[in-house]
């Protein structure tokens, strides 16, 4: 029996591809399969219908066992139209199944896709793939015969017809899907009729040969939902505000792909959380800092250009030693770059992108679900160490949905602000080097802070050379001490005799993990540590690393982490990297190093 299958859905952005994908994820997850996804939107808001630039894609991988990436090339490709086929045909494995919606390959569709009127795409396809043409339009209209809607409106249910086919093909429980559909569409039967028609079509007639029964794995218990990275961050912030029990100001300026966090929080309205759409990124970070000065937790998020604009504000946060969380949802750079694509090329800037000696903790989330936990850790460090923290996410994490077990509130980590009673010197450090947090409103606590160098202890302006030297080192030491709040160093993969260690960080997790597991399965002795803590590094990392002859660092940039690690360790590491705006696939990694 198959252990996993990769399916790619693509059609016009108006075809409801992402919605269809979302339904499949939920159905799969509820039926005990693991699932990972990858979305690909057009860069345009509304590209002209039927054109190649208007194609929206959704890939998912369904598996019997637990998996970590959405897979590389597809076993099955559902093409809603000629443009979709043109864009993604090369993604389908030779011999794979092409499920083509007949009407999407008619003359009009060819014209919209700027293809010659006589192009016979499906004939060409048959040379490489198994092709199953499905008259999606006719089936849909047929199913909705009784419904009193215009043809245009009926056609919106096409995606549900396909859902029905796929539900049957991958042996997912139709009861689950139907319950979902009832819940989503409330009373409206149109979509459910189309779904059932698709399911029946598949079962009774045509697609018997293509059925892939997947084993179910033993599902984890609990209450679940699907979340993407943006939602995970929003929920993580809500949880952090709850754990802190103080006001949180989420202040940000819209930018793709970070804005979805703003939308989520504005929609969710979690307790303690105020949402501000600031006039620009500088206002976003400085108003967040104002909130922190006032005794709340300031949070801001952005992507590339916005990170650049926040450099000065971060420096003030470093100097005033106030908590702040900055989430950078990385995208293709430099400059405006490739705003809808993914990349890990802001790492160096996160580490070094402020004038003066201005170190701060830098963390990275690996998946959507992991972003929830990492946001909580970032908030904990910010508050408990009184420091700004940068959390790196990226467009890939932000947009990929995965099933997530909703945690128990009791199990969330605590967030304990440092002492904040009056009468303390503004900068008197505790044993961990942390200054007190005496918020305005605290009786007798009046004091002034600012961006000028402060005298040790009192925080009063000081240009004294020895004081400056001491303060520079104390601020750095305080940041280094943040590592006390890390959990144990997690070794993802471990071979007893490995002399090669793979290091990666952020959203490459799924692909790298699959690649490493494949290598291990093939007898290559590699260990793997996926870094969540980019600064300071986990204290146990260096001793671990010293045990390996060879260290391979994998990332989606031109080797930024590799450069940084060499800088710290003064030992060679091998850099395996690419900067294409696309996530790594396991296939690609297999070829990139040996």
């Amino acid at each position, binding site marked *: 029996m198959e252990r996993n299958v990769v399916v790619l859905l693509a059609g016009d952005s108006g075809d409801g591809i992402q919605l269809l994908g979302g339904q499949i994820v*939920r159905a799969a997850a509820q039926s*005990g399969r693991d699932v990972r996804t990858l979305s690909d939107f057009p860069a345009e808001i509304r590209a002209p219908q039927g054109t190649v630039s208007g194609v929206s894609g959704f890939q998912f991988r369904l598996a019997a066992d637990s998996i970590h990436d959405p897979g590389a090339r597809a076993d099955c490709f559902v093409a809603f139209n000629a443009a979709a086929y043109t864009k993604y045909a090369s993604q389908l494995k030779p011999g794979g199944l092409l499920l083509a919606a007949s009407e999407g390959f008619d003359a009009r569709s060819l014209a919209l896709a700027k293809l010659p009127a006589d192009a016979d795409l499906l004939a060409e396809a048959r040379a490489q793939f198994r092709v199953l043409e499905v008259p999606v339009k006719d089936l849909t209209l047929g199913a909705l015969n009784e419904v009193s809607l215009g043809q245009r409106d009926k056609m919106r249910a096409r995606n549900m017809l396909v859902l029905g086919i796929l539900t049957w093909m991958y042996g997912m429980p139709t009861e*689950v899907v139907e319950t*979902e559909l009832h819940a*989503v569409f409330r009373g409206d039967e149109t979509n459910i009729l189309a779904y059932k028609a698709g399911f029946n079509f598949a079962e009774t007639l045509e697609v018997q040969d293509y059925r892939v029964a997947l084993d179910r794995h033993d599902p984890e218990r*609990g*209450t*679940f*939902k*699907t979340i993407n990275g943006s939602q995970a961050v929003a*929920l993580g912030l*809500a*949880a952090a505000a*709850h754990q802190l029990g103080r*006001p949180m100001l989420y*202040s940000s300026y819209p930018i793709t792909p970070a804005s979805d966090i703003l939308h989520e929080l504005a929609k*969710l*309205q*979690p*307790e*303690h959380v*105020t*949402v*501000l759409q600031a*006039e*620009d990124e*500088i*206002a976003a970070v*400085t*108003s*967040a*800092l*104002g*909130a922190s*000065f*006032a*005794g*709340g937790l*300031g949070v801001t998020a952005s992507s590339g250009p916005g990170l650049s604009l926040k450099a*000065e*504000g971060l420096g*003030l946060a470093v100097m*005033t030693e106030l908590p702040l969380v900055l989430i950078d949802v990385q995208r293709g750079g430099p400059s405006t770059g490739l705003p809808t694509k993914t990349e890990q090329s802001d790492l160096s800037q996160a580490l070094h992108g402020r004038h003066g000696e201005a170190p701060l903790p830098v963390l990275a989330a690996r998946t959507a679900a992991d972003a929830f936990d990492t946001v909580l850790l970032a908030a904990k460090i910010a508050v408990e160490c009184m420091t700004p923290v940068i959390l790196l996410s990226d467009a890939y994490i932000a947009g990929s949905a995965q099933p997530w077990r*909703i*945690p128990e*509130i009791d199990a969330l980590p605590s967030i304990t602000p440092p002492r904040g009673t009056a009468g303390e010197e503004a900068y008197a450090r505790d044993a961990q080097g942390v200054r007190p947090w005496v*918020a*305005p*409103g605290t*009786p*007798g*606590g*009046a*004091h*002034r*802070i*600012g*961006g*000028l160098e402060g005298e040790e202890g009192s925080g*009063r302006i000081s240009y004294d050379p020895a004081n400056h030297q001491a303060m520079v080192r104390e601020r750095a030491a305080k940041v280094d001490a943040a590592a006390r709040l890390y959990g144990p160093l997690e070794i993802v993969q471990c071979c007893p005799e490995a002399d090669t260690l793979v290091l990666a960080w952020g959203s490459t997790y799924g692909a790298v993990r699959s690649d490493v597991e494949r290598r291990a399965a093939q007898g290559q002795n590699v260990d793997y540590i996926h870094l969540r803590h980019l600064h300071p590094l986990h204290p146990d990392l260096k001793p671990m690393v010293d045990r390996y002859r060879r260290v391979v660092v994998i990332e989606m940039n031109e080797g930024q982490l590799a450069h940084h690690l060499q800088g710290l360790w003064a030992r060679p590491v091998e850099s395996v990297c690419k900067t294409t705006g696309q996530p790594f696939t396991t296939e690609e990694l297999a070829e990139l190093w040996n």
Partner: protein
Amino acid sequence: MELTAKNFQSAEEVRWCPGCGDYSILKQFTEVLASTGADPDRTVVVSGIGCSSRLPYYVDSYGIHSLHGRAPAVATGIKLANPDLDVWIITGDGDALSIGGNHLIHALRRNLNVPILLFNNEIYGLTKGQFSPTSREGQVTKSTPRGSVDHPLNPLTLALGAGATWVARSMDRSPAHLRDLLAQSQAHQGSALLEIYQNCNVFHDGAFEAWTDKATQALHAVFLEAGKPIAWGGTEPTHALAWNAGQPEVRALSRDFSLADAWIHDPSDRLKAFALAELEGELRPFGLLYAAKRPVFAAGQPAGTRPLREVLHSGRTWTVE
């Protein structure tokens, strides 16, 4: 216990140039804090960078000397996190109008509930004498040895244009007037933009003499009072403004034109306030030009209230048992 101005003076040594107009403003500010019964524990003075922006250090309350131009944004965050605080913004003509222009207009249009004290000395003091957005055409400064070619910004028309709800002007050299306006700015519900003419005796000395000097003040400074005719010229006014077919007109007071014929100042009239703000020549208005009621910002942005459990479980969930 009643606090006095002394209670609001911090221990920090004041480091402005001897003779700087900032001293008087600081003095009136602490006196107004005392006289309005401000609570030092709930008072927060927020500034950007500049000579003027050093003020928070000298006030014994909470204070943050933030980044050049960013005080309105910092203050916005403070107010959103704790709307109960009495927040003041201290800024300069460079801080507020050059690098900080964007935050200023957005604070004003949102009606953030904060007085904004703009110390206008028509120069960059702290960086030693470059021209600022309020410097005059032809002004010779370190960066314009041949005279500035930039047309100055008028902070008052800018504020009105941005939708400010309270706009006024005062000066370092008229302590009582300044104290009065400071107190009013604090009492206003919303953003209160108070431009304060401040003499930088090192880099632009005497810029405002025409209006601040006892000898010439009566000729050039028009002190506005709501409900009163707009007149000037000494204890017995000699001149007044008329509102003539929608344009201000200077009239000598005479039998033909008495105070009763003069334009009666009405700070709720936005258009007339704009006309007054536009007086950029020898004649300049002081006092409250405009005041209006509009909901304040922080109040419209309440924190969320949905309990965490509900938030975590929002949307489509499923349970595996």
